[in-house]
Each structure stands twice: as structure tokens, then as C-alpha cells.
């Protein structure tokens, strides 16, 4: 029989080793790569350039554009998803027949393969025969070139993300609302609070852990958006809807400049880790 003292290490070991080898090592390797000059199109040789890639990055206008696009995308998508999702959750937080059915229904967008979702919306937002423009024309709004014009392409990506992920906000917040204790509500109603007061002084504070957790998680994910953009606008027209992931993928796969692509990807990593740390710290406090 195995010595009981070592069992815990035997059970945990493989997982830690796996994550060190396949998670942490690539990360360190990626940091190393970002200090290298690697152009696979020019040949296999590499050379050390120190912070060269990051200096190039700071002067790369296209990089700053993609960073701005990413931040604008995350803020507007998560913001809209929160507003719509919270609204829906508040309206539907009641005894209703068929609620289970609707919950199942709302799972569909978030579980659908993102590339397939991208194509769905390329059809729906098609400027010539897409149903979206047809619906708009019914209320007298003229044709919009959703994906093909630089002013609207990023907004169209936001729209697609809102379709895909509002259900996440809605279902999390609904679950949060339904888990709230009843007593504070009864007390505030006895004290004669108005509906708005109940919402502001009871619901919001009680729900805030859920609101923060859901928004942070959604933001972390939104920072990484790639699939939908890849098949809809591919970052275009120009670079109007290009995000950091998209840019790093283009540099890496099309130009095969792996050192520079690593530097670009690393800046995204730093941004995402900052948001992740806020999330993880909050979870830690909750667990105590």
C-alpha cells in the first residue's frame, strides 16, 4: 500500500507538472521570444534584440489602434450586455410558467460555435440582402453597411457579441437575484420603501458581488475576442475592427514575425492579468 503521506502529492503532482510544462513554460518562452528577432519568411536564424520589439511596438500606430479598438470593444460590449441582461433579469425575476424553457433557449447563443455565429451575422448584416436591413427598412431606416464601413464595423462586432453573451449576464444576474434573501425585502416594504428605493438600497448592494464577478469575467473573455472578428471583418475595413489578438495573429501567421507577434500578445496578457487579478482577489475574499 502506498504511504498515505505521499498520496496527496501523487494526486496533485500530474496537474501541477502539466500546468508548469504546458502553461507556465510557454508563457516564459513567449516572454523570451518577445526579445528575439524571428522572421520565418527570412529564414530560421534568430537574434536577440532586447526590448527592441517593445520599442517598435510603442511606435507602431497600428498597434495603438488595435489596443484602442479592444478597449472600446470590451467596454461597450460588456456595458450593453450588462444593461440589457440586468433589465431582462429584473423583469423576469418572478414566478412564471415556462421559465425553464426560456433558460434553455438563452443558452443557445453562448454555446454556439463562435465561427458559426460569425457567419450567421455576416448573412444577417449583409448590406444587400441581409434581414437586418430588411427589418430596418420596414420602419423606414435606409440601408446600413454594417460590416463594410470603417465607422460601423467595430459596432457590428459589439452587436454580435451582445447577441452571443447577453444571455450570460442575464442568466448570472437572474440566478443572483433568485438567491437573494427575502427578509430585507419584507423589512423594507414594511418600512414603506418605494420600488425604486428597494432596488437602490436593497437589491443593488446585495447583488453587487454577482454583478462584479459576472462583469469581470465577461471582460476577461471579451479582451480575448478573436473567432467572430476573424470570420466577419477580419479586422477591416482597414484596421477599423482589428483587436490585439487579431493583430498578433496576423503578424504571427501571415507575416511570420514571431518575435514581434509575441511582444504584441504579451501586452494583451498583461492587460488581461490585471483584470483577472481583481477578479481572483475578490473570489479570495469571498471564500474567507
Amino acid at each position, binding site marked *: 500500500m*502506498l504511504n498515505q503521506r505521499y*498520496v*496527496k502529492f501523487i*494526486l*496533485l503532482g*500530474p*496537474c*501541477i507538472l502539466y*500546468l508548469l510544462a504546458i*502553461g507556465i513554460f510557454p*508563457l516564459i518562452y*513567449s516572454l523570451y*521570444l518577445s526579445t528575439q528577432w524571428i522572421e520565418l519568411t527570412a529564414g530560421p536564424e534568430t537574434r536577440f534584440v532586447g526590448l527592441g520589439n517593445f520599442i517598435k511596438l510603442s511606435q507602431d500606430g497600428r498597434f495603438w489602434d488595435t489596443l484602442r479598438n479592444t478597449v472600446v470593444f470590451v467596454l461597450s460590449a460588456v456595458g450593453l450586455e450588462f444593461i440589457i441582461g440586468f433589465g431582462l433579469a429584473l*423583469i*423576469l425575476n*418572478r414566478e412564471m410558467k415556462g421559465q425553464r424553457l*426560456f433558460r*434553455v*433557449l*438563452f*443558452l*443557445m447563443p453562448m*454555446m*454556439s*460555435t463562435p*465561427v*458559426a455565429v460569425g*457567419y*450567421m451575422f*455576416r*448573412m*444577417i448584416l449583409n448590406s*444587400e*440582402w441581409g434581414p437586418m436591413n*430588411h427589418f430596418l427598412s420596414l420602419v423606414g431606416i435606409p440601408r446600413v453597411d454594417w460590416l463594410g464601413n470603417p465607422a460601423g464595423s467595430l459596432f457590428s462586432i459589439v452587436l454580435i457579441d451582445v*447577441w452571443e453573451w447577453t*444571455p450570460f449576464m442575464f442568466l*448570472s444576474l437572474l*440566478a443572483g437575484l433568485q438567491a437573494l434573501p427575502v427578509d430585507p425585502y419584507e423589512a423594507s416594504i414594511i418600512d414603506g420603501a418605494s420600488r425604486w428605493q428597494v432596488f437602490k438600497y436593497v437589491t443593488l448592494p446585495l447583488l453587487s*458581488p454577482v454583478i462584479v*464577478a459576472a462583469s469581470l*469575467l465577461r471582460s476577461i473573455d471579451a479582451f480575448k475576442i*478573436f*473567432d467572430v472578428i*476573424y*470570420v466577419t471583418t477580419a479586422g477591416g475595413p482597414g484596421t477599423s475592427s482589428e483587436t*490585439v*489578438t487579431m493583430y498578433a495573429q496576423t503578424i*504571427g*501567421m501571415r507575416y511570420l514575425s*514571431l518575435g514581434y*507577434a*509575441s511582444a504584441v500578445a*504579451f501586452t494583451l496578457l498583461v492587460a488581461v*492579468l490585471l483584470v*483577472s487579478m481583481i*477578479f*481572483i482577489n475578490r*473570489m*479570495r475574499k469571498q471564500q474567507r
Partner: protein
Amino acid sequence: MPKSVKLLDVLAWIVLLVATFAVLFPIWWTVTTSFKNPRDISTWPPPYVPFLNFEPTLDAWKSIFGGPGQLSSGGHAGSMIYRVVTNSLIIAVSSSALAITIGSFAAYSLSRFEFKRWKNNDIAFWILSNRMFPPVAMVIPFFLMFKVLNMLDTLPAVIIAHTAFSLPFVVWMMREFFLELPKEIEESAMIDGCSVFSVLRRIVLPLAAPSLAAVAVFCFIFSWNELLFALFLTYNQAQTLPMLVAGETHTGAPLWWLISAVGTVAIIPPILFAVLVQKYIIRGLTLGAVKG
């Protein structure tokens, strides 16, 4: 005030109907487009309802599932779909199985034993932080590593990559589950002389089976839908279904009826699975921060 309550109910139903329409319409459009003739794609007003607005045909389905049909002007053979679906299935099933096995052992260890040098909580949160890394920061090192190992365009390369992303999730979710499970049964079995492994097999595994299944489904869906790793690590033999779908993007005028059919094939398994684990979805998607 029964009157205002009724008004709210009506409002709730209207909102629900609008939301339902918004959720379902894109899926409806894709599924129906897969039954359209090329000539029905760009008509105006858009044809919404089969039989009523357009004559449905099985051509797209026939051409993706064999026959001499082509998936795109780029010239993918029809039989491609069998291979990519098989690849996607193998990758998704293996990476989920791997992550579940390694991950739940680790989760059990973290929930039942005490670690001294690093606290259990610290280890758990360190594992969780692995989940947050943006894939694009990992994908270039992966590409070079697998290139050196001569493993590019093989299924194991993608399986290893996907497992790395599922593993932290498995540990995190299963640890929570084990912490909720009472220890007493296991302890008395240990006192009766059972080894840790037989306790795991005879007591913990049967109790954990439903949660394990739910967590595995999440891993499966993640892997099934994943594009970026597959894009970097494979180019031909090991291509996955999302790549086949995405591959239609840069090749001339898109053949919408075919893309819709392939897209429909792609979204069916994750949606079906999601319905099965409906109860756990919010818990899973929020990493346990919201108990659904």
C-alpha cells in the same frame, strides 16, 4: 394593486417574446439557409420561411455529406466534413478525458489533504489563474514547441493545448464540489482499511459522477468550439470543424447555403450538451462565483 401586477406580467411577456425572437432568429436563419437554393440567397425581401417564401432543397446537405459536391469554390472535397468532424470529436473527447482525470485527482487532493509549504488555497488560485491567460500569448510558443517536436498538424498537439485550458477549470470546479461533499464516509472507509485509491473508486467516483459529467461537458464544448489553437497548430490532416467553417472566409464569394449547413453541424452538439447540463451552466461559466 392587482391591476399594475397584471400590466407588469404583460410587459414581461412582451419582453420575453422580443428576446426569444432575437435569440432564435439568427439560428433560424442559418438553419433555413442551409436548405436554400443558390438563387434564393440574395433575393429581396429576404425569404424567411421554407415552402412559403422559398422551395427548400437538400442540395447543400447532400454536397457536404458526400457525393461529388464541393464545399466551396476553393475546392474542398465533400468528404472533408467526415474527417474534420472525426478530428474535432477525437480532440474534444480526449482533451476532456485527460483534463477530467488529471484535474479531479488534483481537486480531490486539494480538498482533502493539507499542504504545508504552500497553502491549499494558494495552490488552487494559482491553478485558476492559468485559466485567465489569453490564448494568443500561448499559441506562438506552442507553435514553435510542436514544430521542434515535429508534432504540427497532429491531433495530440491540439489535444495537449486544449487540455491546458480545460485543466484549471476542472480543478477549480471539482474542488468546490469535493469541498461540499461530506468527508465522514471516506474517513470511516479509511479507518476500515481502504486505501485512498479504493476510496476514490468505490465512494467518491459514484458520488462525483454527475458533477464530473457536467464539468466534462464544459471541456468538450470549449474544445469543440475552439479556433485559435487549431489555426496555429494544424493546417491539413488535423484540421477541426471550426477551421473548416472559418476556412470559407477568404475564398471568393461565400457559398452561403454550404456554410450554413456546416455551421448547423457545428452548433448542434454544443447546444444539445448545454441543454443536458443546463442546471450547472451558470455555475460553470462563472467559475462558481454565482451559484446557479
